[in-house]
């Protein structure tokens, strides 16, 4: 026991060196004011605190980064995959015939039908409503013929004639 204590005595004397390590002069004079100003400003969320909170809420993200740290090859593989996806997207977006024409036309027709349906009820008065009070909140839609892309007339959307009448007192 005493032997080991004696052995450690030398180590403890060496460890005393750490007590002589001191921060820059004046550091402790400014420290309280820095803490209080951060408290006052409500700036407790430093980037590190934000990162702590993020990792606490999403531990899988931390594990994800740890995998990258442990095996840097994964970083390269991940970056390559992202680049390939980006390249593929650019090339695919640049091709005009990427989507079949029939599919495009079908999509356009389907999108035009609801547009016509939406305009009609706006202008149709409800049974209990007086005809004189019938107003449209979107008259432009009702007066213009509904067209699809590339100026094709939509056969389902017909112009609706609207008459405004102001009630007399």
């Amino acid at each position: 026991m005493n032997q080991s204590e004696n052995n450690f005595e030398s180590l403890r004397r060496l460890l005393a060196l750490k007590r002589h390590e001191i921060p820059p002069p004046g550091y402790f004079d400014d420290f309280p004011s820095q803490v209080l100003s951060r408290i006052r400003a409500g700036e407790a969320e430093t980037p590190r605190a934000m990162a702590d909170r993020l990792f606490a809420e999403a531990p899988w993200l931390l594990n994800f980064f740890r995998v990258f740290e442990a095996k840097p090859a994964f970083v390269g593989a991940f970056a390559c995959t992202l680049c390939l996806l980006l390249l593929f997207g650019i090339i695919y977006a640049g091709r005009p015939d990427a989507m079949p024409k029939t599919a495009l036309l079908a999509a356009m027709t389907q999108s035009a039908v609801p547009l016509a349906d939406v305009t009609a009820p706006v202008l149709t008065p409800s049974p209990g409503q007086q005809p004189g009070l019938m107003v449209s909140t979107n008259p432009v839609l009702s007066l213009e013929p509904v067209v699809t892309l590339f100026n094709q007339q939509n056969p389902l959307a017909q112009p609706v004639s609207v008459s405004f009448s102001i009630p007399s007192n």
Partner: protein
Amino acid sequence: MIMAEPAARQDPESPAPADEEALVRRVRLGDLEAYDELVRRYQERIYATIYHMTSNHEDANDLAQESFIKAFQALKTFKGGSSFYTWLYRIAVNKTINFLKQRKNRVHMSLDDLDFNAEHDPDLVAFVSDKTPRREAGLAELQEKLNAAMLKLSEPHRLVVVLHDVQGLSHDEIAKIMDCNIGTVRSRLFYARQQLQGYLSDYLKPT
């Protein structure tokens, strides 16, 4: 195994418990001047503990500030089961250990300078001129080797060495801070010293 404890550093300016309790009560009522007083009392010890754990001044500065801010925000939950000092220490230690776990494998030392007294400390002068086989090693090199050896320890072992051998806290106080029993503190301290002795064997050879 029972180890001799170093004489705990008696700080003559240590607050009486009643004084500390009064300050804590005032802070709870929103008195920031009272908190300023508490920060001034404990800043050096909290900073030093974190610094000796991280061996990095910038990290220690950030973590010390965050510890005091968190303590302020959490003061409403402080039930007074332990002293404010022990509670604050626990916050700082937990924050530091969490930080070190995330920082793993990214060790960067940014050491504080040694004060003027180090050059005149008879124990340390002996290390440089007598005990060290490499007599040319100066205090700065010794400081760097010592910090590097400390960083090789696991966080709980490093913490025990810092709190006991550097800060001079008793086993009992350390057990409260680390929320473990005194036996665990003693065994960790013994193991940590053995490890350090191995790492620093060149500098600890008997004359």
